[in-house]
C-alpha cells in the first residue's frame, strides 16, 4: 500500500529580507556597536545567517541616557491617548510585516513556520493592540487616580520566543509611559532589530525604544547600570538568581519570569484523545523550549497505560525537520549548547532507570535536532522529574488519587503553570485551587492571551506580565 508522503512545502526564505549584518538600535538610529560582533546561526542548517554588531559599555551608557532623555522630554509627559496612537501604529506595522517577521524568526530561532506564523506573530500584534488600549485608561485601572511610570526599564529576553517576549516586555512598558533598553538573546537578535525598523516606521520618538544585542555580559552591565529604574528579565532561574543578587539593595524594581517544570495532570475521566493533544501541545510546542511547558505528565494509574499508547501513536505522527516547511510540527533546537544539555539530561533519565521512548521520525543530518522523547516510569526523585530540560522530552509519572496528584504536582521548586484534564468541573476546580502555579489550564494547554496575567511562584520568579496585573510592574502605585 502506498504511503501518503507529503511533498515539501517550504516557505520562501527570501521573505525574511535577510541582511548580511545588523546593528544596535540606539536613540532612534541603527549604529555600530562597540562590542565584539557575534554571528547568528540558523539552527536548522548551522549556516551563519548574519553578523550582528553588539553593544559595548559605552553603547549601554548612550542608550540609557537616550532612554532617560526620552522619558523626561517626550514619552513620559505625553498624554496616554497619544502614546496609544504609536502603539496601535506599531501593532498594525507588525501585522503588515508579519510574514517577513515570521520567516525571519523561524530562520533565526529554528521554530516551525506554522508556529511563528500562526502563534507568535498574531500574539505579538495582539499584545501591542491590547496595551495600546490601556495607555489612556491607566487612571481607571484601579491603581488610584494618577499612576506614574517608573522611568527607564532595562529588559532582557530569552531565545525561545524572541519577538513575543519582546512584545510582552515593550508593550506594557510603553503603554504605561516608560522608556526601554532591551537586550535580545545572543542567539536570536534579528527580529528584535527589525522591530527597531518598525519603531522608526511608526515615527516613535528617538530613545523611547533602544535595542542592544549582545551576550550575558551586556545583560549584566544593563542590570548594573545606575540609570535604570526597573529590570524585567525572562530566562533561566540560574541567571534570574544572579540578577536578583545584583539588584538587591538598589532602588531598582525587578520582575523575574524564570524556569518551570509544569505538571499536566490527567484524571481517569479525562477526554483522553484531547488530553493527548494537550500533552503534545504542552511539551512539543516550540520543541519544548517553553518555560511553562507541560514537561511532567501525571497520569492516573487506571488510564496511564491506555494514555501512553495513544500518546506514542500520536507523537509518531509529528513531523520533525525543516522549520520553514509548512508541514513541520517540530523544528530545530535553538543552539548546539542547548542540544548538548537536552542530551545530557535525557541520558541521565536512562541512567536513573526511566524507560526511554523516542519517536521513530527521521532526523535531519545537519542542524540541531532532537526527536520527541517520552520517559515513562519516572519518579519524583529523578533529575528528569525535577530539572527543567527545555526540550522535547516528556517525563511521565503516575498517581492514584487526586490528593496524590496535587502533592506530586506541587513537589517542585518551580511553579509557573499546570494543566488539569477531567470532564468533571468540580474536580477541575478542586485541583486548580490546590496547585501552586501562576497559570492553571483546564482541558487545554499553552494558551496565551494578552489579557491573562502570566508569571510564577517560587523559583519560577515573581511579578506578572499581561492583563491589568501586568501593568502594575511598570507603574509606581
Amino acid at each position, binding site marked *: *500500500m*502506498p*504511503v*501518503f*508522503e*507529503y*511533498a515539501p*512545502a517550504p516557505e520562501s526564505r527570501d521573505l525574511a529580507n535577510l541582511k548580511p549584518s545588523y546593528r544596535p538600535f540606539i536613540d532612534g538610529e541603527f549604529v555600530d556597536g562597540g562590542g565584539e560582533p557575534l554571528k547568528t546561526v540558523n539552527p536548522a542548517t548551522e549556516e551563519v545567517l548574519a553578523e550582528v554588531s553588539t553593544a559595548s559599555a559605552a553603547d549601554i551608557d548612550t542608550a540609557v541616557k537616550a532612554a532617560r532623555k526620552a522619558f523626561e522630554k517626550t514619552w513620559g509627559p505625553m498624554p496616554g491617548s497619544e502614546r496609544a496612537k504609536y502603539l496601535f501604529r506599531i501593532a498594525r506595522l507588525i501585522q503588515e510585516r508579519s510574514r517577513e517577521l515570521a520567516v525571519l524568526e523561524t530562520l533565526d530561532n529554528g521554530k516551525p513556520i*506554522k508556529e511563528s506564523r*500562526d502563534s507568535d506573530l498574531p500574539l505579538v500584534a495582539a499584545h501591542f493592540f491590547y496595551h495600546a488600549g490601556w495607555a489612556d485608561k491607566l487612571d481607571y485601572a484601579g491603581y488610584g487616580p494618577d499612576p506614574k511610570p517608573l522611568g527607564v526599564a532595562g529588559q532582557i529576553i530569552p531565545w525561545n520566543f524572541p519577538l513575543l517576549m519582546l512584545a510582552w516586555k515593550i508593550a506594557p512598558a510603553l503603554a504605561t509611559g516608560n522608556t526601554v533598553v532591551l537586550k535580545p538573546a545572543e542567539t536570536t537578535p534579528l527580529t528584535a532589530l527589525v522591530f527597531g525598523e518598525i519603531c522608526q516606521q511608526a515615527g516613535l520618538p528617538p530613545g523611547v525604544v533602544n535595542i542592544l544585542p549582545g551576550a550575558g555580559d551586556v545583560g549584566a552591565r544593563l542590570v548594573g547600570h545606575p540609570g535604570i529604574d526597573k529590570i524585567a528579565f525572562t530566562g533561566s532561574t540560574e541567571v534570574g538568581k544572579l540578577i536578583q543578587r545584583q539588584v538587591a539593595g538598589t532602588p531598582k524594581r525587578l520582575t523575574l519570569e524564570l524556569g518551570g517544570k509544569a505538571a499536566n495532570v490527567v484524571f481517569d*475521566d*479525562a*477526554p*483522553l*484523545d*484531547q488530553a493527548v*493533544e*494537550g500533552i503534545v501541545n504542552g511539551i512539543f510546542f516550540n520543541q519544548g523550549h517553553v518555560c511553562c511547558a507541560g514537561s511532567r505528565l501525571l497520569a492516573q494509574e487506571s488510564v496511564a497505560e491506555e494514555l501512553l*499508547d495513544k500518546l506514542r*501513536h500520536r507523537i509518531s*505522527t509529528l513531523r520533525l525537520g525543516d522549520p520553514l516547511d*509548512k*508541514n513541520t510540527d517540530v523544528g530545530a533546537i535553538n543552539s548546539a549548547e542547548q542540544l548538548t544539555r537536552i542530551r545530557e539530561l535525557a541520558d541521565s533519565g536512562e541512567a536513573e532507570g526511566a524507560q526511554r521512548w523516542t519517536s521513530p521520525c527521521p532526523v535531519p543530518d545537519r542542524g540541531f535536532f532532537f526527536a520527541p522523547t517520552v520517559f515513562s516510569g519516572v519518579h519524583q526523585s529523578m533529575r528528569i522529574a525535577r530539572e527543567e530540560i527545555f526540550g522535547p522530552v516528556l517525563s511521565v509519572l503516575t498517581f492514584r488519587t487526586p490528593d496524590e496528584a496535587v502533592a506530586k504536582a506541587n513537589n517542585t521548586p518551580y511553579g509557573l503553570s499546570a494543566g488539569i484534564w477531567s*470532564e468533571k468541573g468540580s474536580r477541575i476546580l478542586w485541583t486548580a485551587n490546590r496547585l501552586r502555579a501562576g497559570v492553571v489550564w483546564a*482541558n*487545554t494547554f499553552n494558551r496565551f492571551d494578552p489579557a491573562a496575567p502570566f508569571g510564577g511562584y517560587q523559583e519560577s520568579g515573581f511579578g506578572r506580565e499581561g492583563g491589568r496585573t501586568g501593568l502594575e510592574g511598570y507603574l509606581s502605585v
Partner: protein
Amino acid sequence: MSAPTLPAALADATRDDASLRRFLHGLPGVDQVGVEARATALATRSIKKSSKLWAIDTAISMVDLTTLEGADTHGKVRALTAKARRPDPERPDTPQVAAVCVYPDLVATAVDGLKGTGIGVASVATAFPSGRSSRQVKLADVALAVESGATEVDMVIDRGAFLEGRYGEVFEDIQAVKAACGDAHLKVILETGELVTYDNVRRASWLALLAGGDFIKTSTGKVSPAATLPVTHVMLQAVRDWFTTTGELRGVKPAGGIRTTKDAIKYLVAVHEVAGEQWLTPELFRFGASSLLNDLLLQRRTQHDGHYSGPDYVAVD
C-alpha cells in the same frame, strides 16, 4: 447476542441493555473545543505536487458515487454507472471509483451497468433516510437490495431510539441487518447531525462497531450538518481504538457536503494522522459524494496538464 470474536470485556458490554449503556457511557468523553481545534490545525497541512496527485487518485478510488433522489430513474443510474466505469474518458489512467450508491429498487440497474468492472454497488436500505419504520420493513428493504445484487448496504440507525437511550434496540437492529446482509458489507449511518454532541458520536460509533458494522458513516446527506472534519476525527479515533482492542479493521465513511478536492485532502490527512496510514484504502475509507468526483477529475487534469480546464471538460452525470 454478542459476536463470538469480541474480547471478553467487549462481549460483556453487549450482554444486556444495562451493560451496553454502562459501557457506552463509560467511554472517555470528547472535549468539543479540543477536537475542533485539532481538526482545524490538521486541516492546514500543505499537500502539493506528487503528494497531491497521489491524494487525488486515492480520493477518486474511495468515492461512493451517489444518487439518492426521489426523482432517480433507471436512466440516471445507467449514466452514473457509465461515469463510474470511466470517470474521465480522455484519461484512461484515471482510477475507478469504489462503488455506486443507489436506492434498493435501482440496485439491479446499477449491477447491470457495472458488470465485470469490480466496482461495488451500494444501496441505502432500512427506510432511508429517516429509519422510521418497523424492523420487518427495514429487513425487507435490505433483502430487496441484497437479492438485487448489492455488495454493500448502507443502513441508517434509529436516531430516535438512540436519543431515548434505547441502545439495545439500536444494537439489535444493526445486528439483524448485518445478518440479512449476507456477504454484503454493512455501513452504518449514524446521522451525526442529529446526534449533535461528539459524545453521542463516539457512543454511536462504538455501538455500531460492537453490533458488527463494517463501516461507520456520518450522514445520509439529507440532514445538515452532514459530514464535518471534527466528527470524522471522532469516528476515526473510534475505529483506531477498535483496532487496538480487537485487532479488527473497520472503515469510516464521511458523506454529504464534501464537494472539493481541497476538502477531500483534509479528510485524507485526518485518516493518515488520526487513524493511521493503514486506513488509506477504499476498503477502509470512503467518501459519500456526488459532485466531489468532478472536482477531483478537474484537479487531476490540472496537476497533469499544468493548467485548469474548466467544468465543461468533465461529464455532468
